[in-house]
């Protein structure tokens, strides 16, 4: 979103552009005016995919709201009304519910790509912050959206998650006051559903705002790249259009096929069957689990014996990403040239997936059948410790001590070298 060299030839367009340079803005953001490194790989597709999913969620969400009623007596029936009576309502709703999951899949890959290739490092720290803010807003939005169908998991998930905030009981009655504010009463009830509905509609537009800042912050230093070196000379960069528009369109088309397989052939596989039972405050489900994208953090919460510190650990597990740019002291960005960092990155990823898997287990379920049986709680504690150790110990030490591989002089040079070899 920097200055543009966009020069319209059509007189009418030029007249308009002189008065509102919005076409130049588009040109320098997504068009030929934006120069991107020539060596971006397919992991760089996931940013535009996330943007696409945000738009899909907003469009389907706005249509769903036309047919939905945010009231405890009517919400569950309203969703079934959408599924049964509204023309193509099932398509809109299944797209929205599976879209939420796919949005998180895409964003997780986008974040992990940033971690692997060092996209959070100077000068892109603020870009990284804004991405994390988007992710936090997505978590809040996704949680509140899951409450709206008012099924059993909606209700009990809302009860469990809101109760966490009661842990901030720093003076007499403080925790209770927070809960009353969240609920709009003395328990999860109609006022809770209505405020969640209101915020679930509002937050996506806040996300759009932060996305614009995210893209703005991206365009000052420009995109990082798999080599992690600065793109300097003209040979290092190519115009975003047509190269990356073509590549993003191909990626998007492929992604839509995957999304369609979920929507049309297994639309309920990401959800919990209990959410097809209307919320009933008198019947607690045997096992309350959040949506899959919160599970690693849910395990960290459960791993800490003290409620307040459990909640703090859970929030810290996400907030710690904000200091990653300083925990990592390496002069080299990309893990391509940092073999030890790369190894621990994959270990961290596996551990986080395992944390997610543990999130679905009851604390006393036996995970490893040895030494009298190691239960899920113990494994959750070990995994949680590794999770934090990765940030606090492994990254700071490894990034400062490891011996790195030689880094190419320039992107253009690496292309020429690769062509010579191949």
């Amino acid at each position, binding site marked *: 979103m920097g200055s543009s060299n966009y020069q319209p030839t059509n007189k009418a367009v030029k007249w308009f552009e002189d008065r509102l340079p919005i076409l130049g803005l588009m040109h320098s953001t997504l068009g030929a005016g934006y120069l991107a490194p020539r060596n971006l790989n397919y*992991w760089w597709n996931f940013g535009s995919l996330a943007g696409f999913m945000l738009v899909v969620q907003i469009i389907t969400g706005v249509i769903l709201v036309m047919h939905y009623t945010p009231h405890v007596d009517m919400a569950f029936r309203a969703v079934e009304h959408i599924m049964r009576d509204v023309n193509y309502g099932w398509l809109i709703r299944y797209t929205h519910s599976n879209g939420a999951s796919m949005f998180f899949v895409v964003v997780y890959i986008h974040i992990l790509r940033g971690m692997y290739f060092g996209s959070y490092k100077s000068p892109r720290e603020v870009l990284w912050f804004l991405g994390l803010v988007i992710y936090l807003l997505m978590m809040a939005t996704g949680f509140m959206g899951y409450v709206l169908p008012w099924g059993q998991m909606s209700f009990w998930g809302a009860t469990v998650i809101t109760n966490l905030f009661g842990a901030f009981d720093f003076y007499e009655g403080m925790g209770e006051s927070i809960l009353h504010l969240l609920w709009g009463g003395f328990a999860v009830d109609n006022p809770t559903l209505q405020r969640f509905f209101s915020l679930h509609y509002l937050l996506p537009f806040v996300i759009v705002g932060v996305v614009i800042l995210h893209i703005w912050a991206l365009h000052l230093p420009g995109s990082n790249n798999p080599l992690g070196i600065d793109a300097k000379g003209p040979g290092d960069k190519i115009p975003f259009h047509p190269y990356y528009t073509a590549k993003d369109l191909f990626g998007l088309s492929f992604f839509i*096929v995957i999304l369609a397989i979920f929507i049309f052939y297994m639309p309920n596989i990401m959800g919990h*069957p209990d959410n*097809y039972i209307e919320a009933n405050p008198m019947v607690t489900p045997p096992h309350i689990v959040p949506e899959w994208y919160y599970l690693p953090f849910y395990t960290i919460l459960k791993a800490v014996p003290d409620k307040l510190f459990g909640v703090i650990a859970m929030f810290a597990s996400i907030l710690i990403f904000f200091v990653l740019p300083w925990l990592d002291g390496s002069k080299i960005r990309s893990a391509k040239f940092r073999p030890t960092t790369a190894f621990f990155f994959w270990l961290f990823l596996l551990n986080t997936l395992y944390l997610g898997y543990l999130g679905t287990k009851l604390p006393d379920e036996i995970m490893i059948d040895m030494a009298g049986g190691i239960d899920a709680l113990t494994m959750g504690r070990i995994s949680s410790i590794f999770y934090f150790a990765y940030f606090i110990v492994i990254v700071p030490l490894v990034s400062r001590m490891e011996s790195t591989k030689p880094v190419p002089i320039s992107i253009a040079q690496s*292309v020429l070298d690769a062509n010579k070899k191949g």
Partner: protein
Amino acid sequence: MLNRLKNIGLMTLAVSALTIGGLTAANAAGASAYPLKKYDWPHAGPFGMFDKPSLQRGLQVYKEVCASCHSLDMVAFRELKALGYNADEIKAFAAEYEFPNGFDDEGEEKYRKGFPQDYFPAPYANEEEARDANNGAFPPDFSLLGKSREHLSLFTPWNSIYGEDYIVGILNTYHEDAPEGVELADGMSYNEAFPGNLIAMAPPLFDDIVEYADGTPATTEQMAKDVATFMYWAAEPKMEVRKKMGLKVIIFMSILTIMLYFVNRRVWRKIKKGDDLA
């Protein structure tokens, strides 16, 4: 590039596999430990469509047996079109039911016969009446049972429990006598598929409890399968149109993806080779 694509695809799958697979495995763990018999449902799979005669028989079982205790709140008579009935048949079906229709001049409730746009009436006026009539238990509504008793697993599909299999399991695994050591409270029955095994519903089906209009022998298993098919349809009435549209979308998008792959390759040809740098 295909190799790289493959890598990305595999990674993406692995990431989702471990997270989502874990979740669904846990769901399965919450269900009954009883190994349910798995049936080959004609409506299963990407091309499976409902067996209409079975749906019609299932409706008959629902109407003649289940409907005396279980409501079907979210299904309207007009939707029975999907079972293969024509407009006149649906009108006649609806007319067999009576619905309250305001009050007469003396304040007495008036009634009218049902129309296709009416919904299946509930057997009880409220939950209290239902519990009173059923020994304290509340017979669940049938509209979504087919989906709310499922436990689907994306990456270990063999662990999935399908709603239809569960319903058949419940209807077919009653024991006349509870095993030794299990005490049955008054009005309770022993059922292998039901979580906890103690179920408040007395065995609802016996051979030939209904006489099928199409002459199919009404064995308990046959009736259970028919009513399970009907209940799955009631829970997911748009399944057929969904699968048909999905096929078109996926074929269209796959062709578009292949075309965009070649467009992309063409656009990048010179840059890939580094011709502009030489």
